[in-house]
């Protein structure tokens, strides 16, 4: 069974540009989560989808971040416009149930904003 995949693995963009990160969850997992770790900080929750609906987006830092999950399959996280402080690693996770011990994490996308 394929795990959670994320694309790209690494993205380098200039401040003010737009970047879109993609996450493909494990097939059949209704729950999809986005997390990030910015430089020198801890892994923090961003948001949680149940199928195509946003269950909890309390961790989204500001309106420059937009997450979508059309059709309840893969998800995208768009940052527009990107700022220097957005640099970090963005992780996606998916699960069947909502218990956090059930989450499977992807390898992450390393975003560098210059």
């Amino acid at each position, binding site marked *: 069974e394929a795990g*959670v995949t994320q694309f790209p693995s690494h993205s380098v963009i200039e401040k003010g540009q737009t970047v879109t990160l993609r996450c493909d969850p494990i097939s059949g997992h209704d729950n999809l*989560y986005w997390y990030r770790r910015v430089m020198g900080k*801890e*892994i*923090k*929750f961003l948001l*949680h989808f149940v199928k195509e609906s946003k269950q*909890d987006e*309390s*961790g989204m830092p500001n309106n420059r971040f937009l997450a979508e999950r059309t059709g309840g399959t893969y998800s995208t996280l768009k940052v527009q416009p990107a700022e220097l402080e957005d640099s970090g690693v963005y*992780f*996606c*996770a998916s699960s069947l149930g*909502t*218990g*956090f*011990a*059930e*989450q*499977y*994490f*992807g*390898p*992450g996308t390393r975003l560098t904003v210059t």
Partner: protein
Amino acid sequence: LAKTTQPISMDSYEGQEVNITCSHNNIATNDYITWYQQFPSQGPRFIIQGYKTKVTNEVASLFIPADRKSSTLSLPRVSLSDTAVYYCLVGDTRYSSASKIIFGSGTRLSIRP
């Protein structure tokens, strides 16, 4: 979720047993203790979870004293491939929202030949 405290880093050698202790003085009655492992360039991976006493699986053992204010992750006979960051998380894994997850800084374990 209960805040946790664990050592920032630890070093050991291949073949040794490694014990990483996590303090969680404010653990609540419904909270479970969960440990994650993260290799470089990968996302965190669940390794073990427990509520009290001892839990063992094919990867590790988890020891939890009666007061549950701390826990110890035990890795038997470590190898170079066990070099990773280990996170201790405490919470009600059944009902806690993911937004309440606190990964903390983790313990960076380095294994040497």
